[in-house]
């Protein structure tokens, strides 16, 4: 087992490379290019423990907390994560119809209006302890309701039976 390299903060400078990739330069002089930042806890810890993977999927380092990075590095990482993780946030439920166990949801999200199917509402909708609701559609796309009580009353009424 090789020792894991953790990044705590200002010891690195992270600069954007191509799309969702970044270059990481340690102040000791080491520079690693084309690393892909990925969340180790994409559901429970959005800004903590971000792994940096090389093109073979090997881990180069782990950022303990994005908040501890230098402002530019933090911005770069957050932009990459934003690009990589597409979890539209549902702000309104426009309609929710169901016929024989197939649910058709039309929702308003931060990325526009979208319609999707849910085949099994028991396994596809999960309420987390922090109050967020995660939804997975029939094509394995993800959606999130950050706070059900922030939705309008009609949307709440439509979702309540499923959670």
């Amino acid at each position, binding site marked *: 087992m090789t020792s894991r390299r953790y990044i705590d903060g200002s010891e690195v400078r992270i600069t954007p490379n191509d*799309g969702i990739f970044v270059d990481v330069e340690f102040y000791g002089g080491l520079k690693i290019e084309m690393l892909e930042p990925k969340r180790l806890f*994409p559901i429970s810890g959005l800004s903590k423990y971000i792994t940096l993977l090389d093109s073979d999927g090997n881990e180069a380092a782990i950022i303990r907390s994005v908040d501890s990075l230098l402002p530019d590095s933090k911005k770069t990482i957050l932009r990459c994560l934003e690009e990589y993780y*597409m979890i539209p946030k549902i702000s309104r439920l426009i309609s929710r119809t169901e016929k*024989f*166990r*197939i649910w058709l949801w039309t929702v308003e999200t931060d990325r526009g209006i979208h319609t999707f199917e849910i085949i099994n509402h*028991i396994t596809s909708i999960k309420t987390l302890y922090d109050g967020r609701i995660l939804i997975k559609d029939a094509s394995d796309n993800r959606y999130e309701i950050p706070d059900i009580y922030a939705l309008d009353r009609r949307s709440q009424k439509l979702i309540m*039976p499923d959670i």
Partner: protein
Amino acid sequence: MGFENLLANVPIPKEIQDAVLKINTSVDSPLFAVVGDLSLSGNYGDSALFVYNDRMIAVDESYEGGGDVILFDDIADIKVKRMYGNAVLKVEDSHGARRDIIRFTYSVADVCDSAALFIEKVKAGEDAEETLEIVRSTYKNLRSFCPKCGRKLASPDADCLNCEGKSKIINKFAKYIKPQVGTLLGCLFLSIFTTVMALIPPYITGYMVDKVLPNRDAQKLLFVILILFSVYILQFTVSGIRAYFLRLAGDKIIIDLKSDIFAKAQYLPMRFYDKTSTGSVINRINGDTAVLQSFMLRISQEAVVQAFTLVGVICIMLLMDWRLTLLSLIPVPIVIFCGRYFGKKIAPMYRRLWRRGTSLYTILADTVPGIRVIKAFTSEKRTISRFQRYSDDWLKEDKIAAKTASAFPSIITFLITCGSLIIWFIGGNWVITGSGGATTGLLVSFISYAAMFYAPVNFFANLSDSYQSALASAEKILDIINAEPENDFGKGNKPERIKGKIEFCNVNFSFDRSKKTLEDINISIDPGDVVGIVGTTGAGKSTLVNLLLRYYDDYEGEILVDGINIKEIDSEFYRDNIGYVQQEPMMFRDTIFNNIAYSNPDAHVEQVLNAADIANAHGFISRLPDSYDTMLGERGTGLSGGERQRLSIARAVLKNPSILVFDEATAAVDSETEHLIQESIDRLIRGRTTLMIAHRLSTLRRANKIIVVDKGRVVEFGTPDELLAMKGKYHKLIQIQSMSDKAREIKEAENLEISIG
């Protein structure tokens, strides 16, 4: 350029058609199109990719002019980069510059994969028309939409659940009642009889108050009491008989329903179990069927009886006094309104309660079989607290539902009592003042009838509660009953014998769309070959054999056995011809004999003994006190891992299959046991095509071909000598394995010395 017949994942939107017509200046038509659902900036919107023989046209709002033409000659590399909930088609040009062409959600990822593969292959010089077949097969898989409502079907030929008539659904449950119709009709007749009997006493009571008591006629009183006694005897005797037959019919209904769900569960595809917890399935078979049974009996019996009572009582009441009857109807609209309101309010609560209940079942299903692990890690307290947390969640929901569910009957009963009070007040005044022609006897018997009248009203008002609860359960049961069973396209198609030639042609597979598990698999195995499948953990080795076993059918490409697509062979026959020995063999709570004979229940005793002998299991079995009659605990407790493995091999021997699959059969045993297992494997594999997922050199030495799987692709395939000469991944694995084998041997020798010493 026509878009009507163009191969596309969804109809091409008008704006996209206009955009591509503006960009495309040549006359040739595209071969196929991919309509995306995200813009490059990541917002929902239309985008598209049109693929030609020599180029592609990407359409997206972010391109200047609405789109871009990319020539195949300018592409050095093309691939789909899957991210989280979305993906991009990435192109690298000959100068090493990379860019995203279109962006899409996972709904479109499969077709984009095949587009990238098409371009890759055409660029490599493969025939475009032949390569297009791969794309067509992906689209065929994708095009399993209902022509009526447009929703995706579970498989290309599946019925659309969305369009299935409601009557079909009702029939699904009615068929369980049908066999008991005779008994139920008998019970219904008895119920009507008891109801008629129940209508008599109030009338006689009224007669007694008006005619017998005021006249102080003791003889008449005795006569009336005897009549009442006879009525009660008849009523309660018949009622007891009815209850017995009703219970019997109910039990038969529930057994049929449970058996059907259980049988259906056996034929559900692995994908269903990948997504559904064991606890949830058990809850449906046990809990939900009971709820549904009780509701079916309520509807088929009580509802009819109550309706009959309602009509009968109203008729008698009208005959007695129509004015008092109208007064007693006052609370009815309020009761009905409350019933509807309550139904709407309680339904989501029951659903939520069901979800919490299922979570509890899931913990039970997880922890009870895993009690050894819990004890080993001393996590009893953690497990209890987890159970407690889920129980608290359930209790919280139950409290909310209980408030509504308890308040409603009280409100209804209160309203009904108010109805009786009105009758008492007005009718009582009539009796006191002598107006209205009402007598004390009439008032007493009317009040009794009114109480009988409110009972069915109360019943129907409360029916919505059990209806909602039953509906929640029916939904869960339908989830299993309506789930698509494993596909068996080749039902009844049984080749004379399976020789064992296996071919994977352009096979692509993913468990979910977030990641390709197998990609572009092309291998050919001859009959009698012993093939070792090697690769790191998670490389896709087990998935490869899972596809061969037809645990998953929704892959792209073809898997052929003896030149026949395995989907065209009767699945029962096909699996009968494959022996599968798992890393952790599953034993049932039964005798050792029955566990071996599981693969062939009709096998002769000596065949079982012989199979055990070949598997090197006979020795240890015969030394057990109960020998072949030894009862194994759940999952084979009472035997060591190596012993269970040998029983599993004996099972495979008894099956006498043409193809054998070993999934790391010796991974979890010591060298000595491994030697015994290897011996039995050697005897078993003679003359059969054998696939062995293996890490150990000792296993691989028997292989005449090796498949090296890495990140879902076959990276090396050939004889062991060829692969060693290549000095690639296999060579590296062998080197690592040799070192670890040596280390293991030394350690085992040391342990032996210590234990001897």
